[in-house]
């Protein structure tokens, strides 16, 4: 008698467990073959694995050091760039991996030491609150200034920052006035959303300093809004989860 088929025998066809044979081979190779010549692994207990994750929790970085680094990052992104939109896209791409990393790092750090990591955000609101408080405080030392849902489109959320730290020293030339270098931060946000399983149709940074209303300009000329547009499937899931919970 053959063993009873498992309840989810159909699953493999959907999942295609081993996506590419190639990757599987690589994996196998990594397991058996000794490290390639020329690549040395430190044996003196100084690898990244020997450092405590919470060690630099309260460490601060010189703002000038970041300023100069950001100058170079923008200079790098500007090489053979085709326009403002292209430049913003590249800055976005530079921020994206940072978002992925910070998502895991900050969730591991947030609880008391020795307890298990805190909860993953599974709904839109907790995710956005994680971004505007935990992430913002980690990166910029203060929470974001506002979090709103767009009145016109249900899939759009807006995070405002009156004075983005990354723009502190930046004066955008007149011919590129549309450019907002906080696109880098938008990339970080996108990385967090994507990593947590909330696919977006893009996160973008916009100036709202001008024409936003009287008095607004004088107070916060550099006010920036990060517009997050979630993908349809995220909203669909949100609705289903809302019904169940």
């Amino acid at each position, binding site marked *: 008698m053959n063993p009873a088929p498992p309840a989810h025998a159909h699953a493999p066809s959907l999942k295609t467990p081993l996506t590419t044979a190639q990757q599987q081979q690589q994996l196998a190779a990594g397991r058996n073959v000794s490290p390639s010549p020329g690549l040395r692994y430190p044996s003196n207990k100084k690898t990244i694995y020997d450092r405590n994750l919470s060690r630099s929790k309260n460490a601060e970085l010189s703002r*000038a050091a970041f*300023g*100069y680094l*950001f*100058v170079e990052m*923008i*200079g790098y992104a*500007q090489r053979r760039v085709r326009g403002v939109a292209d430049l913003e896209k590249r800055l976005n791409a530079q921020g994206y991996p940072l978002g992925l990393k910070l998502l895991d790092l900050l969730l591991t750090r947030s609880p008391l030491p020795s307890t298990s990591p805190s909860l993953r955000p599974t709904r839109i609101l907790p995710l956005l609150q994680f971004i505007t408080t935990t992430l913002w405080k980690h990166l910029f030392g203060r929470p974001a200034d506002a979090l709103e849902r767009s009145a016109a489109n249900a899939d759009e959320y807006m995070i405002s920052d009156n004075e983005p730290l990354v723009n*502190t*020293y*930046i*004066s*955008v*030339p*007149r011919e*590129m006035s549309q450019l907002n*270098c906080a696109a880098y931060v938008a990339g970080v946000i996108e990385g967090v959303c994507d990593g947590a399983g909330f696919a977006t149709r893009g996160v973008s940074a916009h100036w709202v300093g001008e024409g936003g209303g009287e008095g607004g300009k004088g107070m916060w*000329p550099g006010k920036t809004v990060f517009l997050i547009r979630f993908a349809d499937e995220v909203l669909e899931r949100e609705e289903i989860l809302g019904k169940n919970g």
Partner: protein
Amino acid sequence: MAIIKDRLVVFALLVINKAGGLIYNREFHSGLNKMSSNDYLILAGTFHGVHAITKSLSPLPRTQSANGTSASAPSPFVNRPTGLEVLESAHFRLQCFQTVTGTKFLLFTEPQQPNVDNVMKRIYELYSDYVMKNPFYTVEMPIRCEKFDRSLDAFVKVKS
């Protein structure tokens, strides 16, 4: 910079790059005679030349600079010959500060203006923040940085 309590009259600021070209020119307080922009360029070039000559006039290194104001703008290379630092007339005073990379700041103030060194230091700070850390600024080129203008205005006008 709360220590500068005195009323401040700063007429204008000029920035000269290390080749002697005028890269920034801003008037804060009317009072100076109007000059054409061409005249400003000539002034910058001329001052640059005179500064270079006075620098070579300076006594041999290791002695204190013989200029009148020995304790002028702080420089990491104290023993370097500094060249002309102050030009004074009955109605105005021109203070020059040269950075280690050869950029010169010229500040036109009233003759009795105290604490010019501190003002200069603060302006240098603003320059290194809003000009040198601006990704869209190319060194030695004319300075067009909105935030530099705005922060200078805020600093100079609040004091006056």
